């Protein structure tokens, strides 16, 4: 395997007596789509929060593109090429869809301590923002305030914001959560198109989506990685079937 874009070394986090991440080792290669699955409360979101820097691990290391980012604040990690979407939709409701994406473009293109010039008419910001919106199928919703978009559209908008920041690694925390079948299919198609352009860590409950998209899958149970490998291998793993997939896949 090539030098991984993300490596977790023995990542451990406890909330009081509860171990939510237990010696988690994980490596994601450039361009790989790596899914993390597991039952509710397995510590998936906590894992993503540690990678993006919202929570600090107790032990272990996080290496982004070979660089130790374990103690870096979230905004510094973002600058190093880490983007994320949230399990609970997190957009800027007062901004238009376009401005939501434009602000993500702005984050990676030059200083934002510019006090003059209308940001809304800067082609260097608006152009890539429109392109990212088009890619997730929101081109004709550009001027709508994000707060007025449907749930599925907000999920797609989050994806566009992540795209616009041209990440090395994109963390997707249940992007399909709460969307209908049709919207899920659309999001899967979008992710399918984006696959290979950058590495993605996908946390998702929708097994159809996971097995359709993932290059490799890790199964997280009680904060521990139970199994890790290509979808077919994980699906066949008796331990995984017993602990989790059995009930999920009926």
């Amino acid at each position: 395997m090539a030098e991984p874009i993300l490596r977790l070394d023995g990542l451990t986090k406890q909330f009081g007596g509860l171990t939510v991440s237990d010696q988690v080792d994980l490596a994601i290669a450039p361009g790989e789509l790596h899914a993390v699955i597991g039952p509710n409360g397995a510590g998936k979101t906590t894992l993503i929060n540690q990678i993006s820097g919202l929570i600090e691990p107790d032990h272990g290391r996080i290496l982004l593109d070979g660089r130790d980012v374990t103690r870096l604040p979230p905004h510094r990690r973002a600058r190093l090429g880490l983007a994320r979407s949230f399990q609970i939709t997190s957009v800027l409701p007062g901004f238009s869809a376009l401005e939501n994406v434009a602000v993500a473009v702005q984050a990676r293109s030059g200083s934002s301590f510019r006090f003059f010039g209308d940001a809304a008419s800067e082609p260097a910001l608006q152009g890539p923002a429109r392109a990212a919106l088009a890619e997730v199928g929101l081109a004709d919703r550009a001027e709508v305030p994000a707060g007025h978009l449907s749930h599925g559209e907000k999920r797609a908008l989050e994806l566009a914001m992540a795209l616009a920041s041209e990440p090395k690694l994109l963390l997707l925390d249940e992007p399909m959560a709460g969307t209908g079948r049709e919207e899920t299919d659309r999001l899967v198609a979008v992710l399918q198109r984006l696959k290979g352009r950058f590495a993605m860590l996908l946390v998702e409950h929708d097994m159809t989506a996971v097995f359709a998209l993932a290059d490799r899958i890790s199964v997280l149970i009680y904060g521990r990685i139970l199994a890790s490998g290509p979808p077919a291998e994980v699906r066949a793993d008796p331990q995984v079937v017993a602990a989790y997939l059995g009930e999920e896949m009926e």
Partner: protein
Amino acid sequence: MHTPGEMQSAAPAAAEEGAPAPRRRRAVVLPALLFAGLALLPAAALALSAGYMLDLFTRVMIFSVAALSLDLLIGYAALVTFGQAAFLGLGAYAVGILAAHGITDALVSLPVALAVSGLFALLTGLVCLRTKGVYFIMITLAFGQMAFFTAASLAPYGGDDGLTLADRNTVAGLPLFDSPLAFYYVVLACLVGAYLMCRTLVASRFGRVLRGAKDNPVRMTTLGFRVYHFQLVAYVIAGMLSGLAGFLLGNATEFVSPAYMSWQRSGELIIMVLLGGMGTLHGAILGAATFLLLEEWLSAFTEHWKMIFGPFLVLIVVFVRGGLIGIGAAVGRRLFRG
């Protein structure tokens, strides 16, 4: 000089982005009308031989500058500060203390007023902006009170009683501020300049980050922005702008006192912003004007004017979320629909 440019650039931008045109147009028309009215006011005052109007509206415009700076923080960054009057006082005290030492030229006192208020904003902002919500309100109030009591204890400069200026500042040796009319237009120029600066600021890259952080600070952080730094810069800019208002206020009244920094004054500034409609900038001007003019006229009408004034403010702030600007917009919508 900036006004036509701003209008020209606003029109194509609205067309290109397909933004709701009436809103954009109103954001240009209303302030333009406001400033035109203020520019023509001295002629009316002259015609009616109502010289007091010039002083009254000079005061209105000075508080408008301070309210503008507060709207920048409350309306665009969701930073509800309860200590903005401190900067007003610092600007005024810069004028007063320098004058007490014989330095009475604006070329010195204005930069000093701006520097002192900017520095105070930087030092207090470093602490205040680490807190959120109610804590932020309380700690800005605490710093405001600290400034107030410090001023009250300055025995060489009048202490509680304040400090009377012998004369207004000169500008490069010229007694420009001595003519009420000239001073009026100086203040108007400051107000228009402050307004255009704020308008530019909120539309800039910097302003966009500030507005984004108001909506969703966690999202902005994970996008790669250090929100704290942006808020700190905004806090310093707003502090300096209020310092400018303080500089003008000291010159207008030729008197400086700790009362300028009282927490009641900070509260009045917040009410002005809410009254006019926060997050609109010209709403702050409208709010300051309404507040001060009502105070003036109601107090002439009855000595119990506060019994009318208080409930009026409460009604507006509680029932009209967008303030006076919001009422105007709602009435406009109703008219155009019907």
